[in-house]
């Protein structure tokens, strides 16, 4: 854009019409709340998971299965996995949106990241369920 005459607005739309769906008017609040909710949930879950992992050092596969087989343990591991991968996606999404400015690669990266987060989360969840139900 040649800036010799200074900027001008050629688009005939209201200020509100131009702002809708862009920038902060998109879905920032829901994202922010989800980030807060998952961080709060992950505070106790991470501590518990870290403690469990330390206790499971050198455990045999049967011992891991016995550990995951407890219904409360299985519930907490699944909750940790859900919170972790949701929180992880929200964070990586922010990084991608900050650094990839072109729309096509940005949307592509967001979709790939979301797909990877879902696959990793599902693989973990199914592994825990299999350990819990069949050992």
């Amino acid at each position, binding site marked *: *854009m040649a*800036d010799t005459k*200074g*900027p*001008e*607005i*050629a*688009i005939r*739309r209201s200020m509100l019409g*131009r*702002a809708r769906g*862009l*920038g902060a008017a998109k879905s920032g609040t829901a994202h922010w709340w989800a980030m*807060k909710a998952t*961080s*709060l949930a992950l*505070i106790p879950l*991470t501590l518990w998971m*870290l403690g469990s992992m*330390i*206790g499971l*050092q*050198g455990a045999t*596969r049967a011992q*891991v*299965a016995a550990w*995951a087989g407890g219904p409360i343990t299985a519930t907490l591991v699944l909750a940790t996995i859900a919170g*972790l*991968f949701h929180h*992880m996606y929200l*964070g*990586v999404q922010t*990084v991608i949106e900050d650094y990839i400015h072109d729309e096509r690669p940005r949307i592509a990266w967001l979709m790939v990241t979301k797909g990877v987060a879902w696959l*990793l989360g599902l*693989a*973990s969840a*199914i*592994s*825990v369920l*299999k*350990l819990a139900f069949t050992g």
Partner: protein
Amino acid sequence: MADVRDALMVGKTSDGKLVRRPLSPHLQVYKPQITSALSIFHRVTGVALSVGTLMLVWWLVAAATSDAAYATASGFIGSWFGMLLLFGWTVALWYHFCAGIRHLFWDAGYGFELPTVHLTGKLVLAATAVLSVLTWIVIFAVR
């Protein structure tokens, strides 16, 4: 004006003249400070921890697959390289954990005064060091 987003970059001065809004200066313009450094660390550790989840997923999937797969995974995790990754991972985890709690306090409206911000920043670094060392003391004690 090629794009709707360009139109949003145009503002009005008090005498009604249209001007292009200024962009905020980027990172390299600022002198490094504890506030910005810790903010960057929070992002870096977050991304590192995201990559680190691969090890957790591998361990869970291997445990659900077979004795051989589980032996391979736990063999790697117990090797010196696996332990090195785990060490980096615990430091990143504790940093992100403590800095995250600091963020939650900010979100609740506390701790914005500059002396407080500097103090909590140093507390986060100290807590990260202490908790990382403690974690590894416990890891070796339980072994």
